């Protein structure tokens, strides 16, 4: 098992170049100022790289649904959050003064559109047929991860955008987050309570790393237990992030309306 954790790192060039490009563009654009934003942004890129290149990726591709759900959680709810929180306000405002960028941003951050997009991507890719299709074809899998990153960035933008006028201000933000949390919870509940394996690759893995017996016998993760664990991870971790962002949004709304009242 320790051999697996040492050797299954995937130093695939596309992942390195992608992450390096994210850092490079950001560095040229903001000169890493202010430092607080830069730290958020860099931890976002680090989380992205670790989720794609670490043994978690190999584990989720071949052996464990739960590992794959942890990876999806990072791609959907950790990376985009940190990247958006890492965008400093002034340069974003400057960008939004450019006509076509402003129009694109306005169109994409329509709350109903952003909500529907993110949730159809989330549910769609977890339908067993599409899920298995992505796991079996590397190209589709990369495309899947890109759609996750893009759709969830669009999803979190109306709540966390650095520019105030792009954000939902009050009750609409609460409804937006609350309903999305329910949707995520529902998907987690499905995988937690279904008693048969839904994803064929995990029933009989090819076992190219020779760790299947450890997973089955030492960790006691048979396909159904693994699937339930994946569902619980999605449910609990996802809900925790939603709760955190909800409270963050609540704090902003509360202090804004408090000021308005006095």
């Amino acid at each position, binding site marked *: 098992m320790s051999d697996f954790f040492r050797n299954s790192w995937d130093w695939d060039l596309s992942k390195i170049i992608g992450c390096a490009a994210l850092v490079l563009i950001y560095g040229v654009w903001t000169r890493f100022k202010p430092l607080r934003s830069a730290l958020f942004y860099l931890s976002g890129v680090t989380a992205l790289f670790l989720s794609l290149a670490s043994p978690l990726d190999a584990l989720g591709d071949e052996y464990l649904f739960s590992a794959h759900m942890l990876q999806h959680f990072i791609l959907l709810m950790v990376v985009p959050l940190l990247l958006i929180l890492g965008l400093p306000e002034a340069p974003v405002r400057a960008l939004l003064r450019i006509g076509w960028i402003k129009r694109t941003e306005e169109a994409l951050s329509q709350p109903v559109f952003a909500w529907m997009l993110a949730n159809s991507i989330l549910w769609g890719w977890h339908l067993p047929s599409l899920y298995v299709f992505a796991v079996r074809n590397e190209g589709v899998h990369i495309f899947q991860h890109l759609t996750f990153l893009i759709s969830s960035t669009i999803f979190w933008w109306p709540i966390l955008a650095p520019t105030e006028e792009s954000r939902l201000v009050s009750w609409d933000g609460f409804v937006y987050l609350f309903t999305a949390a329910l949707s995520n919870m529902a998907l987690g509940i499905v995988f937690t309570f279904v008693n048969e394996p839904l994803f064929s690759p995990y029933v009989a893995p090819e076992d190219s790393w020779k760790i299947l017996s450890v997973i089955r016998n030492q960790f006691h993760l048979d396909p159904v237990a693994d699937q339930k664990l994946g569902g619980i991870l999605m449910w609990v971790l996802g809900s925790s992030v939603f709760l955190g962002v909800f409270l963050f949004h609540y704090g902003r*709304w*509360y202090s804004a*309306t*408090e000021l308005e009242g006095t």
Partner: protein
Amino acid sequence: VTISRDPLSSSFFTVTGFHGLHVCAGVLLFVLLLGWSFIQKKSDRSIPTGSVVSVSLYWHFVDIVWIAVFAIVYLWGTR
């Protein structure tokens, strides 16, 4: 005081309102269990223990949340 007066009252009524809905749902479930157990008793059967365990777990979720709600609204809020 109404829900739309200020942020504090909106928060208060939303939190206690949602908690109240959960309490109502719990009471309804208990009543349903009670009725079901009487129906089953007539034909000399009992209701599955799993259903009782589930409802009581739910009820304890509600009462643990109540500790948090009470602490935030009435202890922390009046400080």
